[in-house]
């Protein structure tokens, strides 16, 4: 193993009506909480924590998440992902997820906040089995700098690669690089500051759900710019340009609410962090 700053591995399995952890492993500055059951659905929520409070030069983190057959879980971060000044080696976050048949994972992270001169590379690879469902969301903020100027970070690069039964079904490459050129103009962030992305993947994400959502977002008045479209495989993607994290979270909540109701007959769960 090559010098990880932190490694964590979590495997969960279905036991009757509940999903329980079957393996939990932490090493270094990366921890995951014990399961928290936020309602009576039997679905645990896990929070990932960075013990250093943020990422610094050269940090490398790796997470492995494994869901057994029909296991259902929620996964999120305990707080925003902060990336500090990264002058030498970009910070790397590698996440590998395996989902067995009938499993359900809702993984919506807190926003990424990159500080001045930060460089961050995130790669998430998901292997899904037929019949599993993934909800995967993230938010990129304009970052933070002492003088309040936006987009002072150097580079954020997020790759999301999803396979269904070993066939590539999603390839997403977001790369915002203010050190190379302005990113707030036409075709890029178009005057907005925050970017949200939510993927719903799996054959349970039917065109019906997509149509319901599309009609709801199409008619709603929103301060955000929202795009929703069907993926090449089963499922759909939602992209949001906004002026704040909260605006994006509101859109994500609406989407998660409808997906959970239609997919699982479950009420949406608040992560109860605030």
């Amino acid at each position: 193993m090559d010098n990880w700053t932190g490694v964590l591995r979590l495997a969960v399995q279905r036991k009757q009506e509940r999903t329980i952890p079957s393996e939990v492993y932490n090493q270094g500055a990366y921890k995951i909480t014990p399961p928290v059951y936020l309602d009576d659905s039997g679905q645990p929520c896990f929070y990932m924590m960075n013990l250093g409070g943020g990422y610094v030069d050269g940090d490398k983190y790796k997470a492995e998440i494994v869901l057994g057959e029909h296991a259902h879980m929620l996964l999120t971060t305990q707080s925003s992902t902060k990336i500090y000044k990264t002058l030498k080696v970009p910070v790397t976050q590698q996440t590998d997820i395996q989902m067995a048949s009938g499993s359900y994972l809702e993984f919506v992270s807190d926003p990424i906040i990159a500080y001045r001169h930060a460089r961050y590379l995130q790669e998430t690879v998901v292997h899904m089995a037929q019949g599993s469902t993934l909800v995967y969301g993230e938010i990129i903020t304009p970052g933070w700098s002492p003088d309040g100027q936006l987009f002072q970070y150097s580079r954020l690069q997020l790759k999301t690669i999803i396979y269904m039964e070993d066939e590539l079904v999603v390839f997403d490459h977001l790369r915002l690089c203010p050190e190379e050129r302005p990113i707030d103009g036409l075709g890029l962030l178009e005057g907005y500051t925050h970017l949200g992305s939510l993927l719903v993947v799996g054959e349970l994400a039917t065109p019906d759900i997509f149509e319901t959502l599309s009609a709801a977002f199409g008619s709603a008045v929103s301060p955000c710019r929202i795009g929703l479209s069907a993926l090449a495989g089963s499922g759909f993607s939602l992209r949001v340009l906004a002026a704040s994290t909260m605006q994006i979270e509101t859109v994500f909540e609406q989407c998660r609410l409808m997906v959970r109701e239609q997919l699982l007959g479950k009420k949406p769960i608040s992560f109860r962090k605030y």
Partner: protein
Amino acid sequence: MDDDLLPLLQLCDSNLPNGAFSHSFGLETYIQEEKVIDKSTFAEWIRVYIEEQLVYTDGLVFRLVYDALAREQWDEVWTWDRMITVQNFSQEAREGNVRMGQRLVQLGLELYDSPALAAYQDRVKAQRSFGHPAIAFAIITQHLHIPLPIALLSFLYSSTASLIQNGVRGIPLGQTDGQRLIQEAQIPLRQAAKRIEELDKNQFGITSPGLELSQMRHERLHIRLFMS
């Protein structure tokens, strides 16, 4: 060069029936939202489309496919076909590319006896590949032994020129303004070709959020001249 010239002119002719006439790739959304309203706002849109969409996605795949064909690594070609299709999150833009790709493959086979193009069509028919104009164009120009720099620039030119013509109809602009825009695009097109030569395959598919959103939102426009 003389041998290359006429087949290239034919391939880049705006009358080539590849279906590009029907696709604005999100431009129509900008027109209806009154963000692209005249020659100068359209020039800016064209520049971004070249520097983002064409450089990181269509153009880079063109170069990588051309390279793979030169090494006879056809499996890499089929991998890029899947990559460029699944990375497109806008259903209309994705399906537009699939249709244009399939038409160009069919047309190419009517004109040239290219084994790679025939294999591509077989895979499309068997639903093992999707079809994409960048890949079909690369296969045809590689078959014709047109050198990569010229083939790539021709592909970028033809994609841009057909979008400019669609913009001329959609905004609308005068035909002369359209020709000026095509001429003014020469500098960003040359820069894009140079940039594509320098890129690494790990830089494939970088999405421009605004362009992508406008392609997604095109699905919900009430009045449409274009299919994407």
